[in-house]
């Protein structure tokens, strides 16, 4: 493995934190403890964790409606995320954003986004800003296969190419956009090809393999920091659950298909590899599992106990 044992375990922990967090979100939804909905990242953890393992706190990411994983992987606090999803004033956005708008500007998390493709402009603009301010920050734009059909994607790739911007477009191709199969609405061999006409290097990687994702990102980030411009990475992955917490996700795909993907589970797979290479022992994992479990449950408890925003909050923060 090209990562040391400590980092390997950090990546495991990162994926597990996302997994457990999302499981709790589903619990909370089922228990009627959240008013809106949320889009679970379960199955796709390797993407966020592989990518963010390469980034600094100063780097930027833009996220999507399916954004919890990105936020956790970039260092977001579980308690403030959970409180946000539950609409509490202690949440990241004081309850004003909810699941689809979690942001932590201090960590370069420029926001989840309810508009499919909403992060394209923001990430590319952040990269432009980094370049103009002569920092070595990079910006990562996470987006779905569905978002790859939004025209603005091509507009900003063109800008990134002509201005040589340090932005990395990370496509999470999870085979579906809502209930519609990606293949049925997406032309061409692969989404990665869409960067090529702009001269932006791109590749397809196994999005269930955190190491593969990380390695592709290392290369892209190195190039970007060296002033060599944008890159695109298409991560082939799968969402185990429905489109959102209220969707069983079974009407438009088969049990077999789902099981095939679960067999490639990124968390379990990574654990097996670590055990096989001796990077960690069962008891190391046990300790991590317990700690994560506790962290997530604590986040739930603190969110449940947290106050709702006062109604007077409603008119605040419209303008700076």
């Amino acid at each position, binding site marked *: 493995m090209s990562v040391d044992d400590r980092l390997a375990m950090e990546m495991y922990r990162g994926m597990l934190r996302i997994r457990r967090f999302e499981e709790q979100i589903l619990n909370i939804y089922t228990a009627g403890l959240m008013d809106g909905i949320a889009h679970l990242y379960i199955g796709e953890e390797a993407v966020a964790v592989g990518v963010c393992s390469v980034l600094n706190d100063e780097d930027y990411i833009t996220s999507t409606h399916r954004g919890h994983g990105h936020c956790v992987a970039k260092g977001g606090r579980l308690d403030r995320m959970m409180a946000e999803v539950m609409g509490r004033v202690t949440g990241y956005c004081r309850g004003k954003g909810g699941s689809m708008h979690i942001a932590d500007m201090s960590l370069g998390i420029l926001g989840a986004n*309810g508009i499919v493709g909403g992060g394209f402009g923001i990430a590319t603009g952040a990269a432009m800003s980094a370049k103009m301010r002569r920092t070595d920050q990079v910006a990562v734009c996470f987006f779905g296969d569905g978002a790859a059909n939004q025209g603005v994607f091509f507009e900003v790739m063109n800008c990134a190419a002509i201005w040589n911007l340090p932005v990395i477009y990370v496509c999470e191709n999870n085979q579906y956009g809502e209930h519609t199969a990606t293949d049925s609405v997406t032309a061409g061999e692969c989404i990665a090809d869409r960067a090529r006409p702009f001269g932006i290097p791109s590749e397809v990687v196994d999005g269930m393999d955190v190491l593969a994702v990380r390695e592709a990102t290392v290369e892209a980030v190195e190039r970007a920091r060296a002033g060599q411009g944008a890159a695109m990475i298409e991560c082939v992955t799968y969402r185990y659950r429905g489109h959102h917490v209220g969707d069983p996700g079974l009407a438009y795909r088969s049990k077999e298909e789902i099981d095939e993907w679960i067999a490639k589970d990124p968390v379990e797979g990574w654990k097996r590899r670590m055990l096989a290479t001796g990077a960690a022992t069962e008891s190391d994992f046990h300790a991590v599992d317990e700690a994560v479990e506790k962290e997530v449950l604590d986040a739930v408890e603190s969110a449940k106990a947290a106050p709702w925003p006062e109604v007077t909050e409603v008119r605040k923060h419209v303008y700076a």
Partner: protein
Amino acid sequence: MSMPEKQLKFGEAIKEAVAEEMRRDPVVFMMGEDVAASGNIFKVLVGLYEEFGAERVIDTPISEAGFVGLGVGAALTGMRPVIEIMFGDFIALTMDQLVNQAAKIRYMSGGQAKVPLTIRATMGAGRSSAAQHSQSLHAWTSHIPGLKVVMPSTPADAKGLLKSAIRDDNPTLFYEDKMMYNLKGPVPDGDITIPFGQADIKRTGDDVTLMATSSMVHVALGAADILEQKGISAEVVDPRTLVPLDKKTLVESVSKTTRAVVIDEGYQSFGITAELTSVVYEGAFDFLEAPIVRIGAMDVPIPYSKPLEDATIPQEQDVVEAVTAMM
């Protein structure tokens, strides 16, 4: 003799309208995101795909500008597309196609062309969906000559007006408050269309006129019930279509009642309530005994957290208070 009718949900009435028009006219087709096998995310269109097949009930890529543009081209060349915009907030992505193309091609071509395109878009807050999935942006398209704008408030209106929209030779925006999809009401049987430009008096009254659109009609009706108990008789007028606008009915009602409140779920400032208010003053200035009160959505991005969200949407109590204060 009463007309034969049945009870339908608002969403069912919409599906019936689309289905009937598709049966009636082979050039009508439906497209949008997840509209086919899934029958759209609100399950409003379930059954259409089975009846009409993939050629006429079409799942699109997530390319709102693109598929609305396709709709314009198809409408120009003999088809009658019905396009769904899943959340009305995404209308923002299609404004150029709607405003610079669809609305103007007929005029710019000196009357050669027509664009019989229907856009069905949802609107309305109330589901804790936050700022990008809760807006009611119908003021924008109402401002643009060449577009028509429909705001149904009941299953019967939805069905009759949507059938008219599909048959209309102009680009028409049909806004559906997603909170009403399960609302039931009587819908007359048969091929009944409702003409545009005819306001409907949903309740007659003498002391004050409540002008309301879409789901706000029900807020107004609820308020009217409460007001009745206080001895105030409220008339509820639903314009049903904003473009064309039945100014006459609005003005006549206020001329009679001498007071008015206007309720719409779009943002209050620079929105629908301002136009309806202005129109009434223009026609009924001499009759008005108190300033017209406007009640729109609070001028803030719509928040996620339920107690905050609720505070931004016009409620019965707001209407009751406004009326009580003006009597």
